[in-house]
Each structure stands twice: as structure tokens, then as C-alpha cells.
């Protein structure tokens, strides 16, 4: 494995940095070069092999591409990143962007790569009792015009002070294959803060997308998160949640429907570090054609985290002979007065349900589509913005344009 291309790219990239940042960035690069891209020899990367990326060459600066016509949500504030650069014309709150990327020591090589090359990102900071009036919609759009595909590394930060509230939507859209995107989001919620976070991904099915969200939850804070994967070629998402103080609560839902040749790896890690916290996790996957889907969910209950209440469930529909599903719901428990449960299933559409529909005159493809829609709706309905729900259902092939009605989705759930 050669990482030479990354070292060279870095020299090109570092030339454009303010001199004060170069040393720190170089250190992160060193960390990445030492460790290299993770391979399945690491337990955390058991099912996803990134070593092939090592020999590839991505251009660090990617000026090309045309600003897309993004389907913005009606009542939102917006930030548009085109190939990692803020597009001021289309952003309503450009002042929320920060170039700085003073990252803490990265604990894995992908995070180190991200920190070395980061072009910054959203920095949302809400004061005590402050409420974001409208959802914030952050779109990352990838479109390479240059001959060699580019790479984009972004870092976003969200800090909510006591009792602050916000809704943030991160969306990835892409138009060109062969790109590499990494993204790290750091979230910190102070006591009583409430964050609704959506991570939606409909990248080009030849693109590589490595994302990670790290959250720290303070006393009685709430995180409501939904992550939806519809596109991408090689996708890995790490969702880390630390319930650091008593009374914190996480509700995490996810839906993945990989493209025919895609590989989607979702890893979640919920750490109950304090007593009286609650976590609910529910993932669903529809895996067809030659796709490969992975779900690894870890719940850790640390010593002393008594009265923990945790549930985790993953359900997969495996619809093709050449597709593959790997699921690993893990529990690590070091306290006794806890209620923890998890479940995992892999199966097909229910024959008796299909039979029932057939007896009502709905047969074949139509019946299957209906059941798939019901399956996906259980997750999509967790998204509180109806407009978004609708466009996601269309994107995922879980709705028909004309007949879609929210009411219908509601009944299907």
C-alpha cells in the first residue's frame, strides 16, 4: 500500500494554509501516514476494507463543478458546500462557517486524514436557552470537473448550551463518481439541550463516503437522530454517542438501501457513562442486487451507570442471492441494575402478507413495493419534516410521485 499520493497532495494543500496551522496539520498527516487506511485486520473494520484507497490519487483542491440546483426545504436556513467550499450565494447563514479545524488528537486514521486536510465547516454555537428558529439545512455537494477525482474533508461542530434547541440536517448529494469525502461532526449538548440531527446521504454510487458523528450528552439533554443511506459506492458511517451525565436520552433511527453494487457500513456506539440514561436505537435495511450492508451497534454500560434503559434493534430484508447482510448488535455491561435488550433479524418479505395482499387483488411487484414501503416508513416517519420525508421516500424508491401522501405513510407505519 502506498500513501505517497496523499503526502504529495498534502504539500500542495498546505501551501494554501495559514502558516500557523501547518504544523498541527502535518502532525495529523503523520498520524494518518503511520497508520494507513484501516484494513479488516482491525476489529472495528472487520467488514470494510479501505486499503485500496491507499494507492489512489485524489486532488486536494477541487475548484471545478457547477453549483447545483438544490431542492431546498421551504422553511430552513441553508449552507451549501460545493466540493467542500462554502457557496456564499446559496447560503443564507454564511457566518456560521468556520475555516478553523483545531481538531483534537484523532483516534483513528480516517479521522486523522480528515483533520489534516479539513477545509472546515459549520460551527453552530447556541447560547443558553437559545433556539434555532428554523431547521438548518447543510448540503455537501460533490461535482468534479477536473480530470482527476477530488477529495473533500469537512469538519462541523455543534455546541448547544443549557436548554438550547436546534434541528440540523446534513445532506450529501453527488454527481460524479470516484470521489472521496470524509466528514466529522462534533456535537456537544449541555444540560437540557435538545438536538434533532438528520444525516441523509444520496451520493453518486461510485463515490466513497466516510462520515462520523461524535456526540457528548450532558445532563437531561436529548438527541434525536435519523440517518438515511440511499446512495454512495463505499460508505462507512460511525455514530458515537456518549451519555455523559444523568438523565440523557438518545433516540437513533437508521435506514439503508444500498445501490446495486454498493457497500454500506453503519457502526454505532452508545456509551452509558452515567445513571438514569435512556437509549433507543432502531435500524432497518433493504439489501438487494449485489449490495453489501453492515450494521454493528455497540451499547456499553459503564460501571456505576445504574438504571440504564437501553434497547437496540436491527431488521434486514435480504432480497437477492448475491447480496450480503452482516449484523452485530453488541452489549458490554458493567452495571447490574440495568435493562438492556437487543435484537437482530435477517429475513425476507413475509409470504403470508404477500398472500393476503394477493387475495385482496394486489399482486406481484405492487404487493412487494407496498410491503417495502411499510418496512421503510417505520424509520422515515421519525423525520419530523414532512417535506423531507416525502423527498427521501421518493429517493429511496419507497413511494410513487403521484400517490404519495403523508397520511398514507402514516397508516402504513
Amino acid at each position: 500500500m502506498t500513501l505517497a499520493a496523499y503526502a504529495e497532495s498534502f504539500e500542495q494543500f498546505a501551501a494554501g494554509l495559514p502558516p500557523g496551522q501547518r504544523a498541527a496539520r502535518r502532525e495529523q498527516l503523520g498520524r494518518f501516514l503511520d497508520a494507513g487506511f484501516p484494513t479488516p485486520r482491525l476489529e472495528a473494520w472487520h467488514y470494510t476494507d479501505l486499503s485500496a484507497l491507499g494507492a489512489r490519487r485524489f486532488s486536494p483542491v477541487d475548484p471545478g463543478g457547477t453549483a447545483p440546483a438544490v431542492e431546498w426545504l421551504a422553511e430552513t436556513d441553508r449552507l451549501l458546500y460545493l466540493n467542500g467550499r462554502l457557496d456564499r450565494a446559496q447560503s443564507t447563514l454564511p457566518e456560521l462557517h468556520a475555516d478553523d479545524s483545531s481538531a483534537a488528537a484523532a483516534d483513528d486514521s480516517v479521522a486523522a486524514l480528515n483533520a489534516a486536510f479539513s477545509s472546515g465547516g459549520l460551527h453552530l454555537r447556541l447560547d443558553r436557552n437559545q433556539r434555532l428558529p428554523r431547521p438548518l439545512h447543510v448540503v455537501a455537494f460533490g461535482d468534479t470537473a477536473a480530470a482527476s477525482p477530488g477529495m473533500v474533508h469537512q469538519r462541523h461542530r455543534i455546541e448547544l448550551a443549557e436548554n438550547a434547541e436546534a434541528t440540523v440536517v446534513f445532506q450529501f448529494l453527488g454527481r460524479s463518481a470516484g470521489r472521496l469525502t470524509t466528514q466529522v461532526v462534533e456535537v456537544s449538548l449541555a444540560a437540557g439541550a435538545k438536538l434533532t440531527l438528520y444525516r441523509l446521504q444520496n451520493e453518486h454510487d461510485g463515490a466513497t463516503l466516510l462520515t462520523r458523528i461524535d456526540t457528548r450528552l450532558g445532563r437531561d439533554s436529548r438527541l434525536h437522530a435519523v440517518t438515511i443511506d440511499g446512495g454512495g459506492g463505499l460508505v462507512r458511517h460511525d455514530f458515537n454517542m456518549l451519555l455523559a451525565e444523568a438523565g440523557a436520552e438518545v433516540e437513533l433511527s437508521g435506514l439503508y438501501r444500498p445501490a446495486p453494487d454498493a457497500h454500506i457500513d453503519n457502526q454505532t456506539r452508545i456509551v452509558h457513562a452515567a445513571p438514569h440514561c435512556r437509549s433507543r436505537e432502531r435500524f432497518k435495511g433493504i439489501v438487494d442486487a449485489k449490495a453489501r450492508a453492515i450494521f454493528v451497534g455497540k451499547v456499553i454500560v459503564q460501571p456505576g451507570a445504574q438504571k440504564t434503559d437501553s434497547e437496540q434493534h436491527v431488521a434486514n430484508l435480504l432480497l437477492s442471492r448475491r447480496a450480503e447482510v452482516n449484523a452485530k448488535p453488541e452489549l458490554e455491561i458493567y452495571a447490574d441494575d440495568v435493562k438492556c435488550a437487543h435484537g437482530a433479524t435477517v429475513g425476507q418479505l413475509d409470504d403470508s402478507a404477500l398472500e393476503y395482499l394477493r387475495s385482496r387483488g394486489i399482486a406481484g411487484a405492487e404487493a412487494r413495493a407496498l410491503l417495502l414501503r411499510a418496512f421503510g416508513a417505520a424509520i422515515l416517519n421519525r423525520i419530523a419534516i414532512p417535506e423531507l420525508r416525502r423527498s427521501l421516500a421518493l429517493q429511496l424508491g419507497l413511494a410513487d410521485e403521484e400517490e404519495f401522501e403523508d397520511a398514507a405513510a402514516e397508516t402504513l407505519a
Partner: protein
Amino acid sequence: MATQPQDIQELMRRREYSAGFVTSIESDTIAPGLSEDVIRLISARKQEPEWLLEFRLKAYRRWLKMEQPKWAQVHYPPIDYQAISYYSQPKSHKDGPKSLDEVDPKLLETYKKLGIPLKEQEMLAGVAMDVVFDSVSVATTFKKKLGEAGVIFCPISEAVHEHPDLVRKYLGSVVPFGDNFYAALNSAVFTDGSFVFIPKGVRCPMELSTYFRINERNTGQFERTLIIAEEGAYVSYLEGCTAPQRDENQLHAAVVELVTLDDAQIKYSTVQNWYPGDEEGRGGIYNFVTKRGDCRGRRSKISWTQVETGSAITWKYPSCILRGDDSVGEFYSVALTHHRQQADTGTKMIHVGKNTRSTIVSKGISAGHGQQSYRGLVRVLESAENARNHTQCDSLLIGDRCGAHTFPYTEVRNPSARLEHEATTSKIAEDQLYYCRTRGIAEEEAVSMIVNGFCKDVFKELPMEFAVEAGKLLAVSLEGAVG
């Protein structure tokens, strides 16, 4: 934990010390250390054929290139493999206690609680056995009956000479010599173990037990077991016993291989209660075992049942390769960790054939500072049409310093497969305890009752005598866990 390295050394020291007392007639112990010469020596002492020596050497060369695995959720100081003596002639009973009066009274008390007859107590404690008693023992009678049925049940070292074709055909065919670190070590240096062969169409007339092989009792460190059930055969095999046994080896790395041909069935039950170390975790056995069954034939079945309450560290994953169409794999397990015990155990079910089914029921109980993990893999290959699996793992926590962990891997490559996995972790419900206590049942007894109920699904898979003992064993093992 920090005190353990000393213990190993001390144990090693003690071993060497006792070897120093052995008279010249009995100097059949090889000096500690492992090399090709040692393996040649072991093989020569046992007068093994050339192919077996080759097998051992291949395993040893592979082992040299392997690293001690670190992925399990257990912690222990590094093991010095050069400090172990890899061969000693089965010890005569001379160095054991002369009568039960010389045996640790604490041990005897445990025997009493388990309801073990006096003669058996002597056997277990390693008391020098009366030769007459031995020769007319039940074992001999059983052997005759087995012979009539055509069943072969003997030490594997004997089988190498008596039935070389069978051993050569099957040895290492389920667990290859380079399978994993400890299996490779075992393949290189194994000294003895059981060999069972049930011919076509025979239903073994009795439950076979290692317990009958009294004479080979002290061969436990690198044990090798091979069980073959031919077409339509059936055997139920019992390993271990509920009583704590006298044993001086700290590291145990056994290999068990099971093979079932068409319509054959093997039921393998284990009760393991080796020395778990004292309350602070000093001493105690390391139990690193590779157990695997190969359902080669159609409609064949392999069923593992285990009750693991002993050992300082348990590390075993009895597995089934469901190769034959319509074959069935089962795994029922109760693992209990108390004080400083650690257990990382579970199973692998590899579905290869069509219509293969597997069931996993794992019950873990953690008390004191005990840590335990269920680690399982269910893999459905492309060829395994209509595979089914149901997995249930439940953990019960007693006390706030223990831990219970679950690492279930599910890998599916066939769309007709149906898999379910469910797991729960909780403590003993207050209302259940309260109910028992209002009925005048003391807390400790109530806990033991509830734990037994929790394990019922597994106990009912055990042969009857074992099931009764297992219940008592849990109660004894949990002593002092509450209150």
C-alpha cells in the same frame, strides 16, 4: 490481576520441585520447553507412526508463526510456553493424598454439597486407588457391553495403534492443525484424550463419559478428543463432572473434533468445574479450548450442551459446520462467573447445506467481579437454501461490579435465510426475590432458585443425572454472591 504472573511462576517452580523428587524409574517427564526435539521425543515415547509425527511437526511449525490471539474480552498475564513441561507419563497415584483425611476439608465440604458418593470423592481428589476396586470397576463392565455393540471407546493414543486408518482419516479433518493458536499448539503436543467410533446404524447402548476413563484422568492439559458417528449412529458423550477436580496444570488447550455422517447424531455435554482461582483471582485454570463438529452427512445432528462454572478464564466456542443438507446444529450453554472469573464463550454455526437449522441458547450469569461475554457467529453461505437460525442470549447480573457482554456476528449471503437474534441483560427482579422471601425462602436460596429457573432451557438438554448435579453446582458456585 497483577499478582498472577507470580502465581504461574510459582506453579511452574512447584512443578519442577516435585519433579526433583521423582525417582529414576519414573523420570519420564521431559524438561520444560518446546522445540522440534521435544515433539519428536513425545512422539517416540508414544511409539507413534511417522504420519502422526509429521502432523505434529507441521502444527508446530505453523504455531511458531502464529501470535497469541488478543481479541477475546479476557485479561491475563502473558504465558511463557517455554516454562511448560509438555510430556509426563500419567502420574502414578503415589504422589496423591493417601486417603480422604489428607484432602482439603473445604473441597470435601463441596463434594458433600454436591452429593457425591464416597468412592467417587476419593477418585476426584486423586486419592490412591485400590487396584482391586479399579479392576472390577464399572468401567470394565461397560467396556464389554460397548464392544458387543461394535463401539470403539478408548484413549486416542491407543486408537492410533489399534485403528490407525480411522484416526488418520479423521484427525485434523474438522479442526485443521493450523486452525488457531491453541489448536496448533494442541496438535503439536497433545498427549492423550478420547477416541469414539460408532459404526453404521448403531445406537450407543449407554452414555459415554470421560469419567469412566479413570486411568487416563491426568492427561488433561492438551487433550484431544475425536468422535465419529457413522451413518445412522447415535451417541451421547459426557465430558467433565460437576465436582472440582485436582489438577496441577494451569493452561489447558484441548481440541475436540466431532464428525457425523448421514442421519447420525452426536450429543456432547460438558460440565466444567475446574479450579477458578481464589476470591482474589489468584491461580485458577486457563481453559482455551477448540471444539468443532462437522455435520458431514445429510440429516445429521450435532448438539453441544455446556455448563461452565469453573476455570479462571474460559475461552471456548463449540461450533457446528452444517455441511449436509437438512443437518441440525444446537448449542445450549450456561456460563457462570463469580469472584474474578472471566469467560468468553459462545458458538459458531456455519450453514453450508440446504435446509440447515441451528438453535443457540446461551445463559450467562455474572456475580462478584466476574466478567463474561457471549461471542457467536451465525454465517449463512450462498449454498444454504432455507437456512434457519434462532439465537437467544440472556445475561443475569448479580452485584454491581460484574459485567456481561454480547458480541453476536450475523453474516448472511442467501436471501431465503431467516435469522433471529435476541438478547437481554438484567438483574434478578426484586419482585421475584420479594415473593420468595414472603414465602419464607432465604435470600440465598431464593437467588439460587431463580438462577436455576433462568437456566432451565439449557438444563433440560442435559442428561438427567447431570441436570440434577448442575443445579446444585450453580447453587454452590454462587455462594456468597448475595447479601
